[in-house]
């Protein structure tokens, strides 16, 4: 009896949470103009062909250039995640295993900036980007977000658990800092590094506001990312739901698949800050 109640609750909330995505997915396959028809399952094969099509995807992917925007998003999110993770790893190693002037003060200064709402940075960062002449470039989308304080927090905590004796032994054998990083820190901290990489990748994949602010809607076709392209697409094609949902799939489905394969990293990464901080 208790099990029955629990499963009913779980299934109901599962439907509640997942139905927008099921709807998105099914609408993306529908013949243009039929998004609002409530019938989901066809009665015959002939009816199936009059209800569902793959055309929306090929139209959005080829004619509307979403293949290019997809690659732009990959470039922005991939590059940014790589460098943000690398920089956080170097800094996290210094904070975990080195003694230097002003260490703890600097650390608390970094942590205190985590409480600043991101919105506050929009105007000054935008003016700085324009003055540097970076407006409408990949640099503008990527570089301002390469300093991840959260990443330092995550990596410092992990690298601190690596025994000093291991590093000492390597030093006695003549290893330099780069070798220590390559041979000891990176292999041991690899799960955390992957977590941070995925977190920052996700952040940039969805960083709509900043990508919108630093690119010119009229001139950005050669660097435009997926979310910005979708927002611009929404204007003239607001009524073509089937096409919009097909375009949305290109942003949602790869991330959903990535999540299914690497959920452990995603869940740990997103909740780590809360549990330890």
């Amino acid at each position, binding site marked *: 009896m208790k*099990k029955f109640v*629990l499963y009913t*609750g*779980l299934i109901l*909330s*599962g439907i509640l*949470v*997942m139905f*927008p995505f099921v*709807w*998105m997915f099914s609408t993306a396959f529908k013949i243009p103009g039929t*998004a609002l028809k*409530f019938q989901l399952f066809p009665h015959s094969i002939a009816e199936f062909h009059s209800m569902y099509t793959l055309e929306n995807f090929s139209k959005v992917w080829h004619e509307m250039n979403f293949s290019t925007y997809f690659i732009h998003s990959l470039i922005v999110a991939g590059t940014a995640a790589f460098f943000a993770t690398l*920089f*956080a790893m*170097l*800094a996290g*190693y*210094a904070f975990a295993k*080195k*003694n*230097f*002037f002003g260490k703890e003060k600097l650390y608390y200064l970094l942590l205190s*900036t985590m409480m*600043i709402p*991101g*919105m*506050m*940075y*929009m*105007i*000054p*960062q*935008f*003016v*700085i980007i324009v*003055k540097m002449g970076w407006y409408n470039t990949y640099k503008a989308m990527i570089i301002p*977000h*390469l*300093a991840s304080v959260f990443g330092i927090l995550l990596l410092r905590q992990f690298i601190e658990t690596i025994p000093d004796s291991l590093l000492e032994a390597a030093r006695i054998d003549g290893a330099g*800092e780069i070798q220590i990083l390559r041979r000891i820190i990176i292999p041991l901290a690899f799960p955390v590094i992957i977590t941070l990489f995925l977190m920052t990748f996700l952040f940039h*994949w*969805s960083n*709509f*506001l900043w990508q919108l602010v630093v690119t010119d809607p009229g001139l950005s076709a050669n660097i435009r990312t997926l*979310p910005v392209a*979708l*927002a611009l697409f*929404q204007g003239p094609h607001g009524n073509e*739901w089937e096409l*919009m949902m097909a375009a*949305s799939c290109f942003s*949602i489905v790869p991330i959903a698949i990535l*999540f*299914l394969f690497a*959920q452990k990293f995603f*869940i740990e990464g*997103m*909740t780590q800050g809360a*549990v330890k901080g």
Partner: protein
Amino acid sequence: MLSNITKKTRDNLVSYALLSPFLIIFIVFLAFPIFYSLYLSMCEKTGYSISNLTFVGIKNYSILIHDIEFWWSLLLTFCYAAMTIPGGIALSLLLAMLLNNKLPGKTIFRSAFFLPNVLDLLVVGIIWKLLYSGGGYITTFLSFFGISMKSGILGNPWTALLGIAIAMILKGAGFGMILFLAALQNIPQAIYEAADIDGATKTQQFFKITLPLLKPIILFMVIMGTMASLNAFTEIYAMTDNGGPVVLLGNHTLGATKLTGYYLFSKWQNHEYGYAAAMSYVLLIIAVLISLINSYILRRED
């Protein structure tokens, strides 16, 4: 002695070399902007180019405190927080309690609940916009219960913000669920057994044992929720046009979903950089006040 000094210097050099790529970006794009923003908030853009900024002192701030639209946006931000925070906490706690049982297949549900968290906010907003529109699935569903929403849920000033809040609660619930689930699993079963022996009902046990032990997480979620409300922009942009359906207040035309984040963006769109910077500074002060209150509460707990 000499080798000691050199070791110290060497350590400093190596450390700052390791820190330098991070620190350069941090200083230019995170530390400097805080001060630069203060300067910008005292400027006005006078020409076509962004370089034509004239210093005007506290003018922007004195306009800001008389700006009805700004106060309205803060009020809406507060309402949005008042809906998303308790709603989010309640739903994620419910999901966590459902999952805090030995059930076959519960990891599948856990993944399904968490999944929307990692998906693009703009896309999720667009999906909900279509579902909420007049003739969309949700409006049609509601019409079966005699609730007629011709202009759609987002086209009605009374329901627009609530609609956005519900969509965001459902998107974010999996995050809190994981936090609550971890905390629930840490509560020793013996406490409940002792309460059972003392004759406490399940409801009493929930309010007297479970909730107090979950307090740190609830507090954390309140902070995160406040931050998310102050930063709320993408969901508003995706779901309503130009700050939502019009609300008339005296002789002011206001937007029913024009939260502070969106208002700030609309000022940026109008190239009023100085004014927008002044607004971001007010946001910063609010955020600092909230984190001070938070650390005060935490200290009192200890």
